[in-house]
């Protein structure tokens, strides 16, 4: 959150001005160590009154362990209008019908593309009519090799890895093919035909050399002009806008599937209240404010993350005027109509790593056959979830 820290400090000063009897002390911890510190403190009987939660990954676990206050009654009492938040995003703050946080921000996935590469091959830029087949055809044409046969530019990549990245590529693909990620009971259902198709598609692109093998960081490749189409999140727009000078890039919504369906996926952060806080009312006032219009406007102006509050997201878009990238920023906002929440389960931290660093790698390398392997993966993942639920 370091790039957002100034925005957060501004939000806090504005809050303290409005509520002069409430003083807020801000503590800023690097992301990796955040959870270690949180757990150590809770174990020691301490905690922050209000803290930021990664709703996609950890909310279910922390709710199950009763560390967070159920704020549904507060929402009802203060008659908070929840329609100001995109519905797909709101789902991430609700577990089993109860709310535990209000949306602070959200992200979506879209496709960045290198205009220079398209111009080079006189190809039309991707538009909202594109399907995954169009992407595949373009990936083949846009992959460029040098005289020795090593790839100079990959046709297709995804931020966060090579191509087979769950958040940036696989999950949206599966969703657009009509598949789900979790079922109503919170079990993972990644062994359905859409998932098989998605993984086979990804594997094919990699085997043909249009995408790199796992182990690279696509963000770097895209910045260096070595990737023609790069699937990535809204959080990278600022970084790319500021640092890509050698070529022009654009952003387009994720393509449709042959079913005509378009899907993207989002995570959202919210502020939660510690169940043992001694300042419940003050904490709620603060959480309410931080999810409200005023705070969202301040956050939106920083151009770092997309605030969840209606219309404040436009401020985020406006922040990109100075780079000439408002149209591209709009794509991320428009995509939220098609978004799906990140699959929330217990034990997400445990199974997700296994999925991303083992199973996906094995599928793409061909060491594990996709269909049988997916069944095995789902079995293992659901065992982990069940174990996490019991503990």
């Amino acid at each position, binding site marked *: 959150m370091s790039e957002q820290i100034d925005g957060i400090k501004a939000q806090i000063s504005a809050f303290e001005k409005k509520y002069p009897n409430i003083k807020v002390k801000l503590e800023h911890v690097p992301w990796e160590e955040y959870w270690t510190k949180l757990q150590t403190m*809770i174990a020691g009987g301490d905690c922050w009154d209000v803290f930021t939660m990664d709703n996609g990954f950890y909310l279910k676990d922390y709710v199950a*362990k009763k560390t967070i206050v159920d704020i549904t009654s507060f929402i009802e009492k203060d008659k908070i209008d929840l329609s100001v938040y995109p519905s797909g995003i709101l789902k991430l703050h609700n577990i089993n019908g109860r709310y535990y946080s209000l949306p602070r921000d959200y992200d979506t996935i879209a496709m960045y593309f290198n205009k220079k590469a398209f111009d080079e091959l006189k190809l039309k830029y991707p538009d909202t009519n594109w399907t995954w087949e169009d992407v595949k055809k373009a990936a083949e044409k846009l992959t460029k090799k040098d005289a020795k046969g090593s790839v100079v530019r990959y046709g297709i990549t995804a931020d966060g890895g090579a191509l087979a990245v769950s958040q940036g590529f696989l999950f949206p693909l599966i969703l657009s093919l009509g598949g789900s990620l979790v079922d109503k009971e919170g079990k993972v259902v990644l062994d359905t035909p859409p998932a098989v198709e998605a993984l086979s598609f990804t594997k094919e692109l990699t085997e043909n050399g249009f995408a790199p093998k796992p182990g690279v960081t696509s963000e770097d490749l895209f910045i260096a002009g070595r990737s023609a189409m790069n699937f990535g999140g809204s959080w990278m727009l600022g970084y790319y806008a500021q640092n890509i000078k050698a070529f022009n890039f654009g952003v387009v919504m994720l393509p449709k599937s042959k079913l005509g369906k378009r899907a993207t996926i989002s995570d959202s952060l919210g502020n939660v209240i510690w169940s043992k806080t001694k300042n419940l009312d003050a904490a709620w006032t603060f959480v309410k404010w931080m999810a409200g219009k005023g705070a969202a406007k301040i956050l939106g102006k920083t151009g770092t993350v997309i605030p969840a509050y209606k219309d404040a997201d436009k401020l985020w878009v406006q922040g990109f005027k100075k780079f000439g990238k408002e149209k591209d920023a709009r794509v991320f906002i428009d995509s939220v109509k098609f978004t799906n929440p990140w699959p929330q389960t217990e034990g997400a931290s*445990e199974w997700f790593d296994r999925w991303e660093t083992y199973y996906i790698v094995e599928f793409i390398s061909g060491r594990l056959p996709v269909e049988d392997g997916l069944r095995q993966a789902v079995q293992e993942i659901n065992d982990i979830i069940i174990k996490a639920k019991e*503990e």
Partner: protein
Amino acid sequence: MREPGGIKRSIQGLYFFLFILLSLIFALLAYYIPFGISFKLALSKYDAISPPEFVGLKNFKKILQDKIFWISLKNSFLYTLYVVPASLVLSFLIAVGLNQNSKFIRTLRVFYFVPTVTSSVAINFVWLWFFNPEYGLLNTVLGLLSLKKIYWLTDPRIALFSLALVGIWGSLSYNIILFLAGLQNIPITYYEAAELDGATKKDILLNITIPLMTPIIFFILIMQIISTVQMFESVFIMTRGGPGYSTYTIVYYIYRNGFNWFRMGYGTALSWILYFILLILTIIQFRFQRRWVYYE
């Protein structure tokens, strides 16, 4: 290990106690009392949020059947096997080489010292960069030599080895500093006398330098094994245990259990198993030292 002759044992005993007293107090505070708490946690089911629930030896029974535990243990010891012998031999030889008085050598020493002072965040990033299959330094060099790309951190067969390279690199300067100090405590008169007797450089190395350095070598061996088995940071920053479980080290597994998966009791039990393994290993090494460590 003689006592100094001429002082009553009771006085020695008194001084012994006084000299270790402060250390003992701080050790109690920082280690032994936490040990006690931690051992209680090892016998509990504990998610670090609700109070611990006593379960006796259940955690330990689970560990024996935990496939990932055995993999992590194996990885940690394999890693140690890659790193410690290479590091010891290399750093010793380099220290001998650097134990000269010329200005050139003294300047070189600074370069060997540098890895110790680099912050791990920064240095692991640089190594991640070196290992990058597309444009990292290592693969670029391989490319220049017309060799195939190596997937340093994503090929399950070599990921652990790649981490070992970083481990060796990082441990060299530490050991070199200690070896240098040890070398410089060897009186120059020993060397002069040996040369007068017609000894070759090799003779001197084998029969004077190395034997006199054995106390320090012993020290480094023990300390390095203990810390290398517990290697955690490189995994945490570079591979997160992947690909698959090939770089899951035991302490990384403990960390994930305790801080990501809400299994602090289990993680603590894992730590205690490691503790006993290292303790036994160290005791064995102490028994063996009579055979090769030379004390004046």
